[in-house]
């Protein structure tokens, strides 16, 4: 579990050291009230650094801060991960993409009409960057989500 008390001293210092990088958000930001959950069309946006085989990996260069598109019908066998960080577990994702990218769970909830639907397209960033680095592409993504009639996004890290 990720409780700081359970981490090694080095890991704990690293985690706490990042807090100062995360300032600048005061909690008074925008608040969008979505339709009721049973009417919500939901997309996944992850910072897990996942993408389709053959897409440009999240390694170095300008493409690091770009998103990768994951069509909702992409088979699990076609999804891989190239996140730069080595300080997190990957064996869960290797076994089952839903532990990071819960596409099958979303489909099940849509089939049961718990949610209104699942987006046609989902998106992946790599989170090992300063928060501000994702701002331009993050904001641009909103336009694509609206065209896909998305009401709400589930954001998943690693």
């Amino acid at each position, binding site marked *: 579990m990720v409780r700081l008390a359970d981490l090694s001293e080095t890991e704990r210092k690293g985690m706490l050291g990042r807090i100062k990088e995360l300032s600048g958000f005061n909690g008074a930001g925008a608040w969008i009230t979505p339709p009721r959950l049973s009417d919500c069309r939901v997309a996944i946006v992850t910072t897990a650094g996942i993408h389709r085989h053959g897409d440009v990996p999240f390694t170095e260069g300008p493409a690091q801060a770009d998103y990768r598109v994951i069509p909702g019908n992409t088979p699990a*066998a076609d999804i891989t991960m190239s996140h730069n960080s080595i300080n997190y577990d990957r064996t869960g994702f290797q076994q089952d993409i839903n532990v990071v990218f819960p596409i099958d769970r979303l489909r099940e909830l849509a089939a049961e009409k718990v949610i209104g639907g699942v987006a046609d397209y989902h998106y992946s960033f790599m989170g090992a960057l300063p928060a501000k680095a994702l701002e331009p592409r993050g904001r641009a993504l909103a336009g694509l989500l609206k065209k896909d009639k998305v009401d709400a996004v589930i954001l998943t890290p690693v």
Partner: protein
Amino acid sequence: MSALGHYLEEEGIATVAISLVREHTEAMKPPRALWVPFVLGRPFGIPNDAQFQRRVLLAALRLLEKPSGPVLEDFTEEAPAPTGDDAEAFVCPVSFAPTVAEGDVAAEFQREIAELSTWHELTMNRRGRTTATLSGLSIAEAAKFVSELSENDAIPSYRKDLDILPAVRLVCHDIRAYYLESVAAQPGAKAAAEAEEWFWTKTAAGKTMFRLRETCNASKNEELQRFGLRAVPTRFTPA
């Protein structure tokens, strides 16, 4: 993750985030977040447990029904350990008997890869996928590249159109994925932390990664220096 919540919400899309590090989420105050008590890398708790994943996902989605925020709630159910998921149950699937000359780490590395190949094939057949294909090299080729680079920081990237930093990251990713996918083939080899410890401390691959880290840290090549800073997980390096 939390920053994306702010950006998307400001652009008109409602968001709810899974939080793995509560302290970070408290600092960033995204509109809605569900903190979960799971290891980094597993925001929905446990692989191949649809019911558990569903409970996490639903708890997060229910936060979309809150009238105002920011909202940060806790998901308090711990991820169940899979059968055999403890230190005692972890079984290394290969013995790695010392058949090559002691000290010849590159040769040991190649032999490990050959010995793991059956286990890796079993995992691929069972899962229908592998994540050890980013570099485009075979694992034996990837190991050869890393072994050579660990002894000589002047060797070029394995591909002309790829700089040395992404090159070394991709091959190291593939090697680690190959080993961890291989050990997953055997019942009892499911404990993620033990598998990682085995990879980094008990294998020639891990030994090569530590050697690579030293070489990169001592290199005058700034790209390799950057790689050296994060070549080995923090918990296996001195504070």
